[in-house]
């Protein structure tokens, strides 16, 4: 307690009392896997954030920057956590040039608020990420979490065009710019995506924006088994239809989605059959394109002998799209123990997917699976209690999941797991061949290792 009070008062001498919080109850809200910081600082500008970083360097303290704190469970808990740097005080739009479709926005701007401003000009940022109602823009980037619009719009690396940040020397730096095409200097901002705050404190981000589509459509087809669902999905991929999203749900996942849907609507949930594999495809475009895609999907579903299929109503599509966007969030709380993996697997390998289910079955664990756009699989295993036998079962299955991903030339990450499991399983999977290179990058940005030490791949 003494150290806490002491740190807070020393920080107050840097930024003033109004920026510092050291009350026990608030500190606990910033906990990461049970680790509580000694002080919270809420800078109001990039310069103030840099001052905190310089203070931390001088005092050899560890900093974890955060926004709405909705995804702090990603990665490992930090090895040290002295200062929680709350970036929500930086929340302005620095530039928005609708005519150029470019945007420059402060780190702590909430995505929802940003979406409202962009929508006034008929534009949007295709970061359809979980916890969308609370997430900040920099949190979405630093977490690297999947957007359900990636099939059409790509990932953040495709539309993040520049950044400003405080490096591990406490200097305000930038890379990229505010134009949509630019190869001037190293693309350091790309390194910030998914870095979990281990390289720098992001203060501002520049994006290419997009025009809101005229309309959208969703199409759902159900199959009695995985093979038929996979064949249908392959046919869709080969057709080249421009889809916004494409996801396949295992029967267990269908049941979970139904339950999640029921919280907001009764429209679709009753018709989702939890005995089937379902494939959801969505599209965005003009009034001619969306129905055309629905027609093509209908034809492909018929050819693939779907057990049932339907064009979703606009509202059902919005609800289902929302539930899928938020899947990472609600999946975490569906059971006392949830181990949520994200795997990259080659397309057209139903064998690998069946293998994943087999791993869970062998350990007598419930599981659910969604094959997301671009071949990324969210595979979740559940246990009903935190007893040791359940943990051992998940631990064993997890080792097999990592091995299966590697054997398929893919990779896996444990996105969410209780701390007890994290202490037994490396959430980042087996050691990567490029770890040495990542360590070099980390050291370049953060030579004193003050940013979120230990949260990242290989103990970075």
């Amino acid at each position, binding site marked *: 307690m003494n150290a806490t009070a002491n740190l807070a008062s020393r920080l107050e001498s840097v930024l003033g009392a109004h920026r510092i919080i050291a009350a026990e109850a608030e500190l606990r809200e910033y906990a990461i896997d049970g680790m509580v910081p000694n002080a919270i600082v809420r800078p109001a500008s990039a310069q103030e954030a840099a001052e905190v970083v310089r203070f931390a360097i001088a005092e050899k303290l560890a900093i974890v920057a955060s926004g709405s704190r909705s995804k702090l469970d990603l990665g490992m808990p930090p090895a040290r956590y002295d200062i929680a740097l709350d970036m929500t005080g930086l929340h302005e739009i620095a530039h928005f040039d609708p005519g*150029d479709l470019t945007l420059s926005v402060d780190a702590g701007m909430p995505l929802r608020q940003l979406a409202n401003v962009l929508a006034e000009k008929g534009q949007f940022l295709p970061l359809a990420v979980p916890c969308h109602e609370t997430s900040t823009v920099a949190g979405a980037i630093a977490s690297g979490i999947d957007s359900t619009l990636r099939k059409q719009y*790509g990932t953040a690396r495709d539309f993040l065009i520049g950044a400003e940040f405080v490096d591990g020397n406490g200097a305000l730096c930038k*890379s990229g710019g505010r134009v949509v095409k630019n*190869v001037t200097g190293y693309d350091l901002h790309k390194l910030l995506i998914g870095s979990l705050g281990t390289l720098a404190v992001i203060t501002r981000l520049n994006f290419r924006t997009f025009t809101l589509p005229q309309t959208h459509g969703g199409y759902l087809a159900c199959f009695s088994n995985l093979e038929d669902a996979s064949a249908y999905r392959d046919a869709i991929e080969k057709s080249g239809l421009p889809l916004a999203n494409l996801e396949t749900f295992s029967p267990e996942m269908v049941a979970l989605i139904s339950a999640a849907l029921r919280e907001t609507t009764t429209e679709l949930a009753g018709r989702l059959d939890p005995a089937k594999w379902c494939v959801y495809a969505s599209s965005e475009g003009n009034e*001619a394109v969306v129905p055309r895609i629905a027609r093509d999907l209908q034809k492909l579903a018929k050819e693939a002998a779907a057990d049932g299929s339907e064009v979703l109503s606009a509202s059902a599509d919005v609800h289902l799209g929302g539930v899928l966007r938020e899947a990472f969030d609600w999946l975490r709380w569906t059971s006392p123990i949830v181990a949520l993996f994200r795997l990259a697997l080659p397309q057209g390998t139903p064998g690998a997917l069946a293998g994943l289910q087999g791993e869970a079955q062998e350990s007598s664990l419930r599981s659910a699976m969604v094959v997301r756009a671009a071949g990324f699989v969210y595979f979740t295993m559940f246990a009903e209690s935190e007893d040791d036998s359940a943990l051992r079962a998940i631990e064993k299955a997890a080792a097999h999941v990592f091995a299966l991903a590697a054997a398929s030339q893919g*990779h896996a990450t444990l996105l969410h797991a209780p701390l007890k499991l994290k202490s037994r399983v490396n959430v980042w999977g087996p050691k*990567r061949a*490029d770890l040495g290179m990542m360590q070099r990058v980390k050291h370049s940005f953060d030579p004193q290792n003050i940013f979120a030490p230990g949260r*990242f791949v290989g103990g970075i």
Partner: protein
Amino acid sequence: MPASLLRELNSLLGSSNVLDKIEDLVLYEYDGSVEKARPDLVVFPHTTEDVSRIVKLAAKYNVPIVGRGSGTGLSGGALARGGGIMIVFARMNRILELDLENARAVVQPGVVNLDITRAVEHAGLYFAPDPSSQKSCTIGGNVAENAGGPHTLAYGVTVNHVTALELVLPDGEIVRVGSKHGDAPGYDLCGLFVGSEGTLALVTEITVKLTRKAEAVKTLLAIFDAVDDASRTVAEITARGITPAACEMVDGWTLCAIEDYIHAGFPRDSAAILLIEVEGLREAVEAQAAAVEDVCRTHHAREVRIAKDDRERDLLWKGRKNAFGALGRLAPSNYVLDGVIPRSKLPQALQKISQIGKKYDFAIGNIFHAGDGNLHPIVLYDPRDPLQFGNAIAASHEILSYCVELGGALTGEHGVGMEKNELMPLLFSDADFDLMRRVHDACNPDSSLNPGKIFPLSKGCGEIRVRKQAKAHSAKV
């Protein structure tokens, strides 16, 4: 260069893969830029292991190295500014794997850009980045420079199509970064290495994404009597949220030169044309083409032609992609610039370029990727005339400075290289350089790899490997 180094390289690679005679080396002292610098030795590896061994030898003899593909680069990125060994990847030109199911190709760096598309087009796939030099430039060079092209407006530049790399570091270590399917856990190292201009590592293998060919395509040629009208058309196409696959502008003066050369049926009396392509589903293409045509006519297009078939379309593109060659007929040499501006600032940028041309008494053509604000003013000049050479450089600096003033950047796709490194302080602070330098030194601590590029030497960025004589501009004859 020590004779023992030559002996060791000969025994490592065989003498047919090593060049050391002056008459051979002069072929490698230039690229597509206005710069020149001669390597002491040129070597042609066949495997990654060859590259690693060459690099280790270079380290042993403390000799700098530079990688090179076809030498079509426009910023001096593949020139041996520090002399030393040039590693030419022309003989590492195999396509190692085609995984059509997952839309990936694994290729060696010496594979020519267009050859990737040729290998997969039977399956309805292609490699999207399409620099004008795509018939001869290599994928390794594309990766180094993060090359673009007309169709990157909709599909993104090289980095958006690379998922994994094999690299050789300056100490000879072989490292693989990224993953075939993308989004590997950890930092986006591919995002860092693509576009690092050969200053961090040599790339020996590349995994690229393949793109599915669109169902329909329409190519429109809009002819304008005023450059401003064409510029405003581009700004409004962007503002209306239409994303064409390509949106290219050519000014009337340049167009006449192209027409003389290609005979594509371009008008000889226009002020500017826009070449606009829309792609996608038939329904989308119809709507977009109609919207584009509407914008063109709103901004006083004299005529809007739509290519009737593939032959007409190919002819229009041939005119665009051979434009630099066409201008080559008009002057002893041309200097292709590469700046970027916010798209809404096109009218003032073009006016400024015209003023700068008048100031220095140069004809400056404009052929560029208007849709993403990527300008390519082309200065026609005689490099044998020292005054003209100096003025061409001065005009370039003024134009690029103006791009920065408008909120733009120094290069959109050609790279910084040794052409613009001294202009970098226009955009970056000491703190920015300091971080970039630390990242550089983490991979290339002795600057043995491609010295004298990207970082301004005037900033004292620790470049000790640049030869004084190589910095001097010499005439390109």
